[in-house]
């Protein structure tokens, strides 16, 4: 069971409940493939750094889960088939990343110790 992080950019025309519905859809898909969700961070509407498919804004969603290695292939097929998804990226989290996300979720970096000046 490896830890993965999925980041998805949906088209900005997506309504709020569609956004929630697709979040649930993918979460259930991963659960069905034998994975377990760890955290879900919907960022919502954000402006993109450069236009994708002629759109300058997108709805971001970051989803952290642990799944067997075989689950990602099916997930990728679903993501590619979905028109609402403009772009997605699945990254594998090593132990430092998992620990970083855990600390960040529990407010570990509250005082921005990581980004003080060199």
């Amino acid at each position: 069971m490896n830890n993965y992080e999925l980041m998805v950019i949906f088209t900005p025309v997506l309504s709020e409940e569609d956004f929630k519905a697709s979040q649930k859809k993918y979460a259930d898909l991963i659960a069905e493939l034998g994975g377990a969700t760890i955290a879900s961070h919907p960022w919502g509407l954000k402006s993109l750094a450069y236009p994708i498919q002629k759109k300058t804004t997108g709805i971001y969603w970051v989803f952290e889960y642990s799944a067997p290695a075989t689950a990602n292939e099916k997930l990728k097929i679903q993501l590619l088939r979905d028109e609402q998804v403009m772009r997605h990226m699945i990254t594998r989290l090593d132990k430092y990343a998992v620990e970083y996300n855990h600390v960040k979720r529990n407010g570990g970096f509250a005082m921005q110790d990581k980004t003080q000046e060199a």
Partner: protein
Amino acid sequence: MAKNEIKYLTAIKQEKPKKKFCRFKKYGIKYVDYKDIEFLKKFINEQGKLLPRRLSGNSLKYQRKVQDAVKKARQMALLPYVTDLLK
């Protein structure tokens, strides 16, 4: 005529450059998050290009992690590929 003028082959280094150190080793940062844009901006210049190690002062291992994170951020449109006056 200019007998006493000493010709130096290499220029004299006047000011001593600030001692650079790898901030990842110093502060014990182990993971560079590609979603943390403010932190990544320290490693790219105005055009959005990656700073070389001699300027960012990173060690090789962490420079590669930064490079990897910046490329992921660019892929997910969090950072532009090329721009002007990014900061």
